[in-house]
């Protein structure tokens, strides 16, 4: 399996009505600065050789000032070279709101084909293993039951306030997986749930 380029993956999600945070590849600190436009941004190094960006220190958060952006850019480049992560690219993203991190994913099961996953996300995925799976296509009732089966149900839905939004997102992901049989695995992790809905911060599509 190979990892699909981030921006390509983002476009596929966009085409399926699944919007993720604004992102762009940059070739210089200057490009990153103009992308920022005074708003705090996130800078990441993306390489097929680095699977867990945050664990490996390849993510720089909350960059606003010119010096911060330049420093982060320089450090990421140095780290990428030192760890032998070439070829790599630097990507910048708008900073998401604070909230609860969830994961929405997809897999191809040997027996049942495409399956969609929802669970408590970010660093908690493996620690708590609080997730639910559904076989695609899932309808609104299925995704509602998946969410209700989670221990973290009330936490991730903001006491139910974001339940409908998350339900719809799970359905959309299921539809996308069925339409694109070539997608072997998918991680949207984290998806940040806040008072204002959801924001997808990281995307991995394996083909």
């Amino acid at each position, binding site marked *: 399996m190979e990892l699909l380029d981030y921006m390509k993956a983002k476009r596929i999600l966009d085409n399926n009505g699944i919007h993720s945070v604004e992102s762009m590849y940059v070739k210089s600190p200057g490009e990153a600065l103009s992308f920022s436009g005074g708003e705090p941004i996130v800078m990441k190094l993306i390489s097929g050789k680095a699977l867990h960006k945050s664990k490996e220190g390849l993510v720089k958060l909350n960059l606003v000032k010119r010096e911060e952006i330049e420093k982060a850019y320089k450090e990421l480049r140095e780290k990428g070279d030192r760890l032998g992560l070439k070829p790599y690219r630097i990507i910048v993203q708008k900073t998401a709101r604070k909230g609860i991190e969830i994961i929405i994913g997809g897999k191809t099961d040997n*027996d049942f084909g495409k399956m969609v996953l929802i669970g408590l996300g970010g660093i908690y995925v493996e620690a708590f293993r609080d997730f639910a*799976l559904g076989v695609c296509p899932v309808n609104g*009732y299925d995704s509602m039951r998946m969410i209700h089966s989670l221990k973290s149900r009330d936490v991730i839905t903001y006491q139910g306030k974001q339940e409908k939004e998350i339900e719809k997102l799970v359905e959309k992901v299921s539809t996308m997986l069925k339409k694109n049989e070539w997608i072997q695995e998918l991680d949207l992790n984290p998806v940040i749930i806040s008072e204002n809905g959801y924001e997808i911060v990281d995307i991995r599509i394996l083909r």
Partner: protein
Amino acid sequence: MPNVSNLDMMMNPRSVAIIGASKNPDKVGHVILQNYVNAGYSGRLYPVNKDADEIMGLKAYARVGDIKDRIDLAVIAVPAKFVPGVLEECGKAGVKSTVVVSGGFAEIGQVKLQEDLVKIAKKYNMPTLGPNCLGVMDPRSRVDTLFLPTFKLSRPQIGGVSFVAQSGAVGSTILDLISGEGFGLSKFISYGNAAHIDEVDILEYLMNDDETKVIVMYIEGIRRGRDFVELAKKITKKKPVIVLKGGRTAQGMQAAHSHTASLAGSWESYEAVFRQFGFTIANDISELLHYAKIFASEPEPRGGRIGIVTNGGGVGVLAADAIGNSGLLKVGSLSDVTKKELRRKMPPLVNISNPIDIAGDAGEDRFNTAMSLLADDDGIDMLLVIALFQTPGADSTVAARLIHYKENSEKPMIVLTIGADYTRMHKIMMESAGLPVYDSPDAAVKALKALLMYYDYRNNTP
């Protein structure tokens, strides 16, 4: 979607040939023929054995082709290497269906031999069950291809539960246990290697079988996952399906591979599919039976508010705890009418709240009063009656009262009773009359929860 249709011929044959029937009591073919004879099978029975003229008083035939009759079912119990030849003869003779009991195929690496079997079955469009299986049993039609003697494995009475098992060992164990339960059996199908007829075919057949009210299945893997999903969407809309899956863990999966040449899928995916389509998941053999009996006899509940009647305070508390922990059921609140009536009709020592503790000296009249009030109380959806037979007041009249009450009850009702011989005697009385009896608060509450969850799924899924 159906891979093989018309299993009806296999379940209700008018004529059966037993190929490999033998005079030697140690042979599988002997036991199978003996079982048909013992069961009083009313169709025409033909032993096939080239070395005998007559077995158990029946004329024996050298080959199936020699029989001058239409054969609806041929049971094949000959060594694996002879099976393709025998199957070919069956095909030529126009046999309508076959059960291959013989082992020695894909489960021990003889893949080619199994492929040959499938080719012949397909060539003659002849539904073939197995190989490496126990076959089928139907107490109504008295078909019984099991090579296990009736003195070792008791046969269940006629009922509404059909049981599908991939494994012969799990199949026969559970079947033996079912014979001790009150609910009875509609059909038993053990399909072994599933070379031709597989689990999807069998479930499809049982889904449309009017005599099957509840389906219980033991599986290790599913061969046609997507077809299974399509069937799963329909089947639980018609009847409850209880599933126990073997091969959940890596160790279990290894055993499954070497066992029935089955491909066990990842448990999480299976669990997700079962949940999504309203299957009731059992975690072991006893849970499977606990669920089977409540589904076999109890009607749809209106909700999850439980009314408890108990002649022992502590067990009532344990049951209320189990309900509290279930995450779905609730101990219901009694209506004012119920409370008033309880006060009027019960002696002062009776506790007027739910659980209704009718005290250790309670006889059938107090049970009757409490149950009748709960039956009429709109705040109660299901009844859990705790009858402890160690108490001074409880004897067979209490068991008889519960049975009588059950026959008129519109709400689901189960009994919890815990104890040794005297209790067991009453448990058997009540279960034979179709009342589900449990021996732990946890098991009782899990069963009530499973009942509610199933109907909740069935009513709410689009």
